[in-house]
């Protein structure tokens, strides 16, 4: 039992490093919910958890790897995906889940994301998008809405954000979905599907960051959730090019892409590996 008073049992205790709780996430932060959904999906999907690994980069979401009681690797900023790629290719039996934030995966790590999607490396990437760099105090990111205020865009963000589902689709991802942390059942189901889908799976999870983003953009903690309720529309199968993310005009959610395609390893085995040497990668 935790040293922090009379904490009751949590249904995910078996998957959590309870000796590391309390976590670092702020009150009102959405990362914990995205993390819970990911962990629940790991359990419900039926995958072998002893063969399941979480890899994170740097940032608030990047701390996820530190709280899961499975093999977990907290790597450098932006490099979770290439680290995970090496891990998956070295031991294809592993289920490799990348759990990280928008700044980590799409600014400093953007190049790795598109290449892993292009290769269709069999990874599940869960990106918590809170529209800014939370850990460093709220700077503009590649996902910050145009005109939004951050510490580095005090008069409004002059840049336009990425459309992450469109980017993932264009790069070649096999599974692309977007949900918010308010849509926990849909999100959990999506992670479960992504874990079972062979190939590069990508889920964008919209999450509030009241501490760093919300308070500079007239969104109190519950306001962001209200927007997630009021302004979202679920459109499964929507063309990723038409997926919207606009707090005024609307936010498109749903499963946009779910299609089987040969993975990197399928292609490598077929193209490069003689049939006589299928006994690959002897572990030390």
């Amino acid at each position, binding site marked *: 039992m935790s040293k922090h008073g009379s904490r009751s049992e949590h249904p995910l205790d078996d998957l959590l*490093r309870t*000796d*590391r709780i309390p976590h670092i996430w702020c009150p009102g932060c959405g990362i914990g919910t995205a993390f819970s959904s990911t962990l629940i999906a790991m359990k419900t999907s039926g995958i072998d958890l*002893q*063969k399941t*690994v979480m*890899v994170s980069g740097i940032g608030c979401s990047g701390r996820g*790897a*530190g709280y899961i*009681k*499975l*093999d*977990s*690797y*907290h*790597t*450098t900023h932006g*490099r979770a995906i*290439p*680290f*995970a*790629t*090496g*891990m*998956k*290719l*070295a*031991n294809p*039996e*592993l289920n490799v889940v990348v759990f990280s934030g928008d700044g980590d995966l799409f600014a400093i790590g953007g*190049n*790795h994301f598109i*290449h892993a999607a292009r290769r269709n490396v069999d990874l599940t990437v869960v990106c918590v998008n809170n529209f800014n760099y939370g850990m460093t105090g709220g700077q503009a990111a590649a996902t910050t809405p145009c005109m939004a205020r951050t510490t580095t865009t005090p008069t409004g963000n002059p840049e336009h954000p990425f459309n992450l589902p469109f980017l993932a689709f264009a790069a070649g991802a096999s599974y692309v979905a977007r949900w918010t942390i308010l849509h926990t059942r849909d999100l959990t189901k999506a992670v479960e599907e992504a874990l079972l889908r062979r190939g590069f799976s990508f889920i964008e999870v919209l999450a509030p960051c009241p501490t760093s983003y919300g308070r500079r953009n007239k969104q109190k903690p519950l306001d962001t959730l209200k927007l997630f309720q009021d302004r979202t529309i679920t459109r499964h199968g929507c063309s990723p090019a038409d997926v919207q993310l606009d707090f005024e005009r609307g936010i498109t959610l749903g499963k946009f892409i779910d299609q089987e395609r040969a993975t*990197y390893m399928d292609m*490598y085995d077929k193209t*490069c*590996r*003689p049939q*006589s*040497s*299928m*006994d*690959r*990668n*002897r*572990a*030390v």
Partner: protein
Amino acid sequence: MKPAVLTGEHFITGDVACAEGALAAGCRFFAGYPITPATEIAEHMAVRLPDVGGTYIQMEDEIASMAAILGASCAGVKSMTATSGPGFSLMMENLGLGICTETPCVVVNVQRAGPSTGLPTLGAQGDMMQARWGSHGHYEIITLAPSSPQDLFYLTITAFDLSEIYRLPVLIMTDEGIGHLSERGICPVASAIKVQTRIKPKGRKDRFKPFLPGPKGIAPMANAGEGYGIHVTGLTHDERGYPVMTAEAQAEMVAHLTNKIRNNLDNIIRTESYRLEDAEFAIVSYGVSTRSSLAAVDEARQQGIKAGLLRLVTVWPFPEELIRELSCKVKAFVTVEINLGQIHLEVQRCAAGRVPAMLVGHAGGTVIPPDHIVEALRNLN
């Protein structure tokens, strides 16, 4: 499957010998990015790895290559990347991750002349201090400097052995001269090659502490997927692998990372000497410059100058004691290297003013002519 060890006699380039050495050492994962003059290592691995049950991947850049070999090693597969100056610079951050997380792997730098894009097709030895201090923070590193293709074959095996024993990325600092040199090289029979592998944990998996050093100062290593449920982070961590943000934890972790090397210098440092017993002038050299230095020793001796050579097979950790001892015996040191004074600074530091320490070097683009070394010796004599 084809044999992993190409037993026999070959006319082989340094780059290919390096790749063959890696395969003989049990390397089964290579991630890289094309760069002159290291590309041939990647090309050879791309051809050979799938034949021996391994996997090759060409990553999007050297940052990704370094990250990928760390991931592969954490999954339990011996891994390597190869690059040259610009790529080596890009690898520095993840090299630090490998050091901090104590992840075995091998990084080859076939050096070319810098800074920046420099002379892509011409050699130098200008990255030696970068090898030592290129990643941020304080750490120890192991660096090997081969001086022939044959040497590159064996030292690549040694690099894997040292990385597995001491749990860190080991650097092979070769250069264009050796990488592109074709010479006779012999690959022994596979059974003659005894390779080292990381110490594996024993006992209850749920009580395993992934960074608790064993009796010899090295923590046993659990791979991903083996059921230990380990956490590995580049943050300062304790023996459980958990982040601890205090000066005390920092002191303890960095002491461990440095002491595992500092306490094993006798087992790590490798040098060779030539006509050094009665030498009045000690040449200190490594890598391709060893070859010029060997010729210079003989020529100098013919001219009546008592010269000898100390070849650094491992450059880092630096053989401080050996240089100190020598400084009490010789009249002067001459460091020969293709840069404007890097290892020269170390020799000077360890000679500590007892005897003069000179440099024969230039900024890169060609090897050092033996005449230049002999001339320096004549001036000292």
